[in-house]
């Protein structure tokens, strides 16, 4: 029996979409106003979904206090009120699109969460990131027998 628990978090960050592999003109064409060299920002909403068996008698999949602490330490403190291109190590060599940010956040969270929940076989199921209220991105690693929606 697997239950999926999702918690939402918020952080605000700036970024500029620009690839050194493209010419200045190509960067403007591909990224449009997101290529503005002065950067711009978003209020990101992060959804973290963990999957596991429900521990009884606590009735919980995972300790929410521990989840909050791990997300705060690994993600929020790293990215909140930062320039993703200039203030973080994660985007020295890759463009801080929300797609890449999703995958980075998954990589940051998976080891500590799955170690903390190891005795219950806890898995980080997915990371979903809303860049604005109109667009969102979701990273779900390929796993056999994964759920559809």
């Amino acid at each position, binding site marked *: *029996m*697997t*239950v*999926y*628990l*999702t*918690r*939402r*978090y918020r952080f605000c960050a700036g970024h500029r979409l620009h690839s050194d592999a493209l010419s200045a003109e190509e960067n403007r064409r591909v990224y449009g106003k997101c290529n503005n060299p002065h950067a711009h920002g978003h209020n990101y909403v992060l959804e973290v*979904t963990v999957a596991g068996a*429900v521990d*009884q*008698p*606590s*009735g*919980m*999949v995972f*300790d*929410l*206090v521990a989840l909050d602490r791990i997300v705060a330490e690994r993600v929020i403190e790293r990215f909140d009120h930062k320039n993703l291109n200039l203030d973080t190590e994660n985007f020295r060599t890759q463009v801080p699109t929300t797609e890449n940010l999703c995958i980075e956040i998954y990589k940051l969270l998976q080891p500590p969460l799955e170690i903390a929940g190891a005795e219950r076989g806890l898995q980080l199921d997915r990371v979903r990131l809303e860049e604005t209220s109109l667009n969102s991105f979701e990273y779900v690693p390929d796993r056999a027998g994964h*759920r*559809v*929606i």
Partner: protein
Amino acid sequence: MIYVTRRAEFSASHYYHNPQFSPDENRRIFGKCNNPLGHGHNYTVEATVAGEIDGATGMVMDLKELKVLLEQEVIQVMDHKFLNKEVPAFAEKNPTTENIAVEIWNLLAPKLARGTLHRIRVYETPDLFVDYYGK
């Protein structure tokens, strides 16, 4: 396969407590949720049914049936109740959102006339929700 989802809301109170734990352990593990007088939430339930589209009606199922089922099986049982004390399923089991999702699945799944229950999602707050797929 098409998935149709119906939402319903209920408000209830609960607290978390395990009689096998000492008072100290209960406070440490469950934090402010251990307050024995209870606290409450506005819960939102999403029931998702999977099925094929009926050629004659163009529908997977009559969503009114799902609405009535949610009302009879879930809302009438849990709305404006103290879950620990007034819902038998939680007499000896903590009414965590995880356990509530599994309980709602168990209440609804056998009663569906058409389609199969695919997912129960329960929001405890807009920032915290649980999904259960029946296995």
